[in-house]
């Protein structure tokens, strides 16, 4: 059940070999768990937020986050840095994909077919972002969250990783397991979609 395709395995190895300051493997299990806890728990809200956006459901998100932390503890031996948060994100993504999607039958299109969508229409041929005069209306938090939640999977997570978590492009590339060029084009498209949805939310103005 926890079988993972190769790419996930690579993500979990997380640049193993780059940096061998692995003290994680030694010591007693309690010490390891304590260190994991100290390193990982401060990111709970961020991990939960990503889960909420990936799964669009509070209860599923809670289960996924709990599984992510348990898995993180198990894999803590292989953690080589650099940063804990992207590492947890990568695990969370795997959890969401390998278990919850299959169980609930909800398609989580964060991989694979996204590419086709991306290439379907070149970005610069899409309907242009509206003219300069159009000011974006400031929505309340609930509406903003919904607009982001309504984005298609691969684009939604770009917004979450970049705008909420301020991850660098290279960190996003590591988490998602795609080249930086793909991160850039997905992010460009995600923002384009979000802006359109944002303006459409206002409805036909007179």
């Amino acid at each position: 059940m926890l079988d993972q395709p190769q790419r996930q395995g690579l993500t979990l190895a997380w640049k193993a070999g780059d940096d061998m300051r692995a003290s994680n493997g030694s010591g007693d299990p309690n010490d390891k768990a304590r260190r994991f806890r100290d390193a990982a728990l401060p990111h709970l809200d961020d991990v939960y937020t990503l889960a909420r956006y990936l799964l669009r459901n509070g209860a599923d998100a809670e289960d996924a986050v709990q599984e992510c932390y348990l898995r993180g503890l198990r894999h803590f031996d292989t953690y080589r840095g650099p940063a804990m948060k992207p590492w947890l994100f990568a695990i969370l993504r795997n959890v969401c994909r390998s278990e919850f999607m299959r169980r609930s039958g909800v398609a989580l299109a964060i991989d694979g077919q996204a590419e086709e969508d991306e290439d379907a229409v070149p970005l610069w041929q899409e309907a242009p972002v509206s003219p300069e005069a159009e000011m974006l209306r400031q929505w309340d938090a609930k509406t903003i969250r919904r607009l982001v939640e309504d984005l298609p999977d691969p684009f939604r997570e770009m917004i979450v990783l970049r705008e909420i978590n301020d991850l660098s492009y290279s960190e996003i590339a590591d988490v998602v397991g795609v080249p930086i060029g793909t991160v850039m084009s997905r992010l460009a498209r995600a923002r384009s979609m979000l802006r359109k949805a944002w303006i459409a939310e206002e409805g036909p103005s007179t």
Partner: protein
Amino acid sequence: MTCAESEVLLHALLDGELDAGHAREVETHLETCPRCARHLVAYRELQQAMPAAQLRFTAPMSLRRRIETALPAARTSTSSRRSVLKGFAMGSALSAAMAATLVVAVIRTDHDQRVLGDVVSAHVRSLQGEHLTDVQTSDQHTVKPWFNGKVDVAPPVVDLTAQGFRLIGGRLDYLDGKAVASIVYRRRMHVINLFIAQAAPSEPQGRKIDKIQGFNIRRWNAQGFEFWAVSDIDAAELQEFVEKFDAASHPASGA
């Protein structure tokens, strides 16, 4: 730069992910293209209208407790977070690549890759014009002292003429913002630049040969130094060079 490229790269500009040179390229395009300039304004506005705090969820207390229970007792300390490297490692090669295709997947990401790009650039620079060596001599005992006071290391300099790699001199160069020593060797018609810097404490050990713009680069750590050998000779020959250099620069470990 075309609008198609700008359309994607202006996001990288917005996010502070472009290095100075490429940021300037995008900005130059924006100055001459009102349409792309409007896009930049529009996306900046979007970012501002969407503060992260409004998007964030807070984990329910029950979840926090569940996880805390599953993990051992509390001990508060903050995790160290690596300062995230900003800025793309776009070597000079990218301008050409960018003109050819929008696929920016060739962008090398992390710091190591950026340094590799620097290594190639420095190598190429050394082959242009008349600045291959600052001190031109095949005498290793002339090259080594020449670096005194110029770089913060006393680089190992060995003559490998007998092994097929002729020492032709040394040069001061810059990598990753630091002055480094470059020892220059020649193999037939090919030049090998060997860059030497002080090794950072936790530098990863590169074992493989990278290839960038047709140049082979071999990086390794030894004796507290960090080495990059770069040349257009083939990978096997470069590997041979590295082995010969290693053997000659510290004959019999501990000696």
